[in-house]
């Protein structure tokens, strides 16, 4: 979903054009559409009277704000020790293999983005991943295939 110009202005109006509001504005905009479009950053720069380079620099500093276009669904796979011990390595490889991309990348059809994440607090059911905001535990390579197929099917329906 792309934010349109009206929405961008709405968010700016809500926080005001003070320089201090920059992070809040960027976070809000990023959350609304999953990532910050160049257009959105340009509008923010003009409205807050900041150089675009500065807006971009701030946005790219925070992991919670995305400056790259993301896939329709984002997988966040836990890379911490408990999940690793519980067989995380095979899941890591299965994800990369099945999606044909590496961690940090997005599939060419724009459907999946694959990210590593730190502990999700679900160690009891590790290995764990989030698809968007939905957690999946006790993962096996087979289970991963099912989950991926499920999202594909859901999209086709």
């Amino acid at each position: 979903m792309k934010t349109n110009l009206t929405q961008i202005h709405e968010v700016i109006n809500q926080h005001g054009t003070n320089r201090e509001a920059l992070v809040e504005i960027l976070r809000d905009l990023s959350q609304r559409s999953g990532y910050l479009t160049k257009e959105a950053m340009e509008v923010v720069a003009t409205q807050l009277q900041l150089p675009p380079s500065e807006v971009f620099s701030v946005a790219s500093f925070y992991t919670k704000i995305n400056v790259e276009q993301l896939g329709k669904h984002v997988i966040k796979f836990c890379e911490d020790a408990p999940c690793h011990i519980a067989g995380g390595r095979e899941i890591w490889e299965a994800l990369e293999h099945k999606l044909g991309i590496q961690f940090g990348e997005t599939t060419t059809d724009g459907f999946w983005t694959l990210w590593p994440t730190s502990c999700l607090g679900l160690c009891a059911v590790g290995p764990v991943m989030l698809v968007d905001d939905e957690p999946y535990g006790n993962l096996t390579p087979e289970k991963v295939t099912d989950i991926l197929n499920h999202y594909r099917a859901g999209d086709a329906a």
Partner: protein
Amino acid sequence: MSKIKLTINDKEVMVEEGQTILEVAKEVGVDIPVLCHHPALTNWGACRMCLVEVAGMRGLQTACTCPATEGMNIQTETEQAVNVRKFVLELLFSERNHYCMFCQMSGDCELQDAAYRYGLEHFTYPRPYEKFEIDASRKYFIQDPNRCILCSRCIRACAEIAANHTLNLKGRGAGTRVIADLDVPFGESTCIECGTCLQVCPTGALIDVRSAYGGREKDVTHTQTTCLQCSVGCQLDVVTRYERLLRVDGIFGAAPNDGLLCVKGRFEPLYDEERQRVQTPLVRKDGQLQECSWEEALPWVAEKLATGTAQGLAATATTNAAFQAFGKLFEKIGDPAGLLCGTLPELGYGKGATIPDVLAADYIVVAGAKPLTTHKVVGYFIKRAADNGATIALVGEPENELRSYAQLNVSYAEMDKVSVDIPDAAAVVVVYGAGLTAEGIAALKPLAEKAVFLGLEPGRNGRGAAAAGLAPLAPAPAETRLVLLGEHPVKAAWVEQLNGAFTVVQASYHSPLTEKADVVLPTPIWAERSGHVTNLEGQVLPLQAALELPSGVRDEAEVLVALAKLIG
């Protein structure tokens, strides 16, 4: 300012108050290594190379940011300080590709110097660094992030000196990169190719295409001269080797431009070699331009000038002495001489400003001028003043390129809005140019007492020409015409206008004008000139030759004096 007493490396010294430890050390001859610090930029304190021990203070202090105070006891090369510097260097060397033997900066690199100084003879840590893409989308210089130490000198230079704010950092951690705007290729960014970032980069991360691998500091010659590309009169440090132009740098601290240059001064003239140079005098024989000697060419020209009607027309890319000699020659033969280019309108009121006045201004009025196009460094100074809080008012310039920096944009008729807006105590500078109309002159008059006026003289050395009594002159029918062109580019209109006479052209390069000429006399280019020019402030600035004059070429002033002599 009062003096303070402190001790540095066991030596007691008296120094001015209000300096950093680094500045004090420099003053008393103690060398503290730096990487992120640059004297022309704000202090940053990011690289930790300058850490020193101060008795009684917890931990090590960054000398580049820590103020020196009364009674301080500073040690700059203790074991602890040296170890920390070494550690920082080891980390920097493991973070990116610093295989110096393949880097064009090797020998002149501040990072490499520091590594040698602290005896880093091997890599201490593994180097699993990421490989970054090189950006070669700009014509004159390249960015190689693999050599970047993220010192941010370039970012500060772009923001603080060029007032352009193109650069910033992307991301964080080991993958951080210096990017332009919203991370677009430099060639598509807001970069104006002033080259300030290139000049201040301490490593091989920014690479000048022309001078790369062309010679290290110990091999090259530096010559200070004045830029001849417009009337600002920026001071240039021309770097040469083997009679070849390598590079031009700005000179921090030298008026009027304090180190800032524009693309026209720093880069473009070095690529003029693409134009074809006139190397010997040429005369037209049997319809063809043919090489001849000065001894043959000059008497012929003298004879032509002395008999029948003549007219002298000069472009403005030459020295004061050449204009003087040009004026005197035509005085002697009793024929008119003047300028091909236009000049500034006469205000008839107001005191002249200096270029640094722009930086110190609280209020800047721009009228009839496009400084970002014609006198770029003045334009950048206006942007810098705006960054520092000055108000910019455009008068009679609704479409001006400075409009996004202006708080007020009014017509000449609404000038009273500006007058009302100017605070009582403000330092006001009016920047005007050749586009100022009679209406504009009248409109600005109320500021005559309050403001100082900076006229952007359109001719490169227009004020030098004016001092020699040369004013704009329309080409008129004459039997002989002498055109003093120098290296000035030829306007299409001139080629048309300068028809139907025996034409002598003094020029550096072949052009449609020299093609039509009957005699062509070669002239020096900017880097070969000695003498003086007068800049738009009226300052007489020296030119020093960085290159020898090619054997067939003679200075115009000398040639014009010789012609006058031949006429007797």
